[in-house]
């Protein structure tokens, strides 16, 4: 295990779009806009950027460089891990910086998560789509013909086992939905600001699949976000307090492209990744001051908390109780509202929020004096990613 990457790179610029149900702008426009703003937030010009990690689909490195003005790109890569991609991409960015391949790296993601499913009647068709890659070949042959077409249904193939094995009740998962919704009330950019949720609302929401109710599921959103990283040394001369990349990893369940024949059904990508990330960072899960956990579904958050090792197997249902994951509690979770109540930006909004927190610029949602935090990503059929971030001292 190498720890040479720890602390070598830092997040120095962040930006996010509005979170919308029906954006006026195209995905490339949203991506260009947040990229420009993240670069400016770092006190840089586009021509300072020589590393680019674009989203899987929608828009290319070449288009980003040409539209923004980046005459010499020395490093470009795309991560194909669904919602685990943005957080996994931080690792590629940090590696390219530590290796001296790139000086300043732009990581960006945007999509039409709402409009792709519910286009406006007058909407023009677009050829720009998410590139899910061949991971779905198994789903096309063996799940979708049975009416298992969405992530809610695929993930229920293991979430159902999880709730049965550990006797997880809807009132346990509700703690996550309610915490995210409460935190969204503090966030101007949250889709669900002004729409508080009660336990009764949660329990009355319609069943979807397996253990999932509607209010266990994240929001369909049009949005984009961008982050700029550079070396820790250079970061110290930039406008904001650097947020150091202390550790990170990606992990994949086995086999990653098929759920039902996994020898260990409940062992997800994050179970493989989390120990490596904390070892690299030289810290423990219980050292974290906040948790920005990929919350496509509430029960997935519970499995991720256990994968992190912040509570034991089956222990998430107790961990989330008694305000422990609320602002003011020991482990504030998704202080921006998360995918469940801010909007679904593939977890990149979690990276943006973690950075704001560690800069101590999170406004009403600020976790007082925070120094360390963790971000997770989750995607495809259970891929995982993680970043352990710290405020530069």
């Amino acid at each position, binding site marked *: 295990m190498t720890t040479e990457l720890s602390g070598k790179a830092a997040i120095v610029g962040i930006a996010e779009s509005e979170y919308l149900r029906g954006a006026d702008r195209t995905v490339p426009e949203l991506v260009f806009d947040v990229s420009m703003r993240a670069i400016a937030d770092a006190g840089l010009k586009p021509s300072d950027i020589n590393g680019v990690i674009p989203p899987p689909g929608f828009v290319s490195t070449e288009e980003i460089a040409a539209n923004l003005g980046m005459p010499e790109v020395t490093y470009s890569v795309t991560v194909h891990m669904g919602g685990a991609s943005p957080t996994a991409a931080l690792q590629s960015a940090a590696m390219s910086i530590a290796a001296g391949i790139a000086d300043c790296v732009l990581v960006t993601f945007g999509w039409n998560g709402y409009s792709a*499913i519910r286009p406006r009647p007058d909407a023009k068709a677009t050829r720009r789509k998410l590139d899910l890659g061949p991971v779905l070949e198994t789903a096309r*042959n063996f799940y979708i013909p049975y009416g298992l*077409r969405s992530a809610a*249904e695929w993930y229920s193939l293991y979430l159902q086992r999880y709730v049965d094995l550990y006797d997880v009740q809807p009132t346990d998962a509700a703690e996550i939905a309610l915490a995210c919704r409460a935190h969204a009330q503090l966030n101007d950019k949250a889709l669900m600001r002004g729409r508080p949720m009660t336990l009764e609302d949660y329990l009355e929401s*319609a069943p979807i699949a397996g253990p999932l109710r509607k209010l266990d599921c994240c929001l369909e959103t049009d949005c984009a976000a961008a982050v700029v990283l550079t070396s820790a040394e250079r970061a110290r001369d930039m406008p904001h307090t650097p947020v150091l990349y202390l550790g990170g990893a990606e992990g994949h369940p086995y086999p990653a492209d098929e759920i039902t024949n996994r020898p260990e059904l409940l062992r997800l990508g994050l179970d493989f990744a989390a120990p490596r990330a904390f070892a690299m960072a030289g810290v423990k899960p219980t050292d974290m001051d906040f948790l920005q956990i990929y919350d496509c579904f509430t029960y997935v958050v519970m499995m991720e908390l256990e994968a992190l090792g912040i509570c034991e197997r089956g222990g998430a249902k107790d961990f989330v109780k008694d305000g422990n994951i609320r602002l003011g509690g020991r482990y504030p979770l998704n202080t921006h509202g998360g995918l469940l109540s801010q909007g679904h930006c593939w977890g990149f909004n979690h990276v943006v929020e973690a950075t704001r927190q560690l800069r101590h610029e999170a406004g009403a949602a600020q976790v007082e004096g925070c120094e360390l935090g963790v971000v997770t990503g989750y995607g495809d059929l259970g891929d995982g990613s993680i970043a352990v971030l710290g405020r530069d001292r």
Partner: protein
Amino acid sequence: MAGSPRKYVPETEGLNQEFFLKAAGGTLHLQRCDDCGTYRHPPRYYCQHCFSGAWHWEPSAGLGKVASWVTTHFTIDRGWVEDLPYTTIVVELEEGPRLLGAMRDLTVEQLELGMKVKVVGETKRDDFVFFWVETQ
């Protein structure tokens, strides 16, 4: 049912297509390693136990037990809206691999982990077979 949206039937290719072509002949076949004898599904080019690339199709009676199930109450699949709520069962075949199929001649209330069931194929096209899960 005239006018109902059709259920999705995938375009198949490669080993998956071979799997369905075999099943369309009337008998489920599973891949089995020539070297260590391990069965596998979904189809793969190499054995995950001994890494051998030598294998053959072996007929299966489709007998097994319930490994898990999922009931869907809301779907974005128009072909399945009229079937709501529907239950999909994961069967652990006697040979070892697990196969997913749609519940038939059973109710959710009757389902128990480990109960004996069988997988029955319905040929939808010469290169795609849909699997039902029934009581043995």
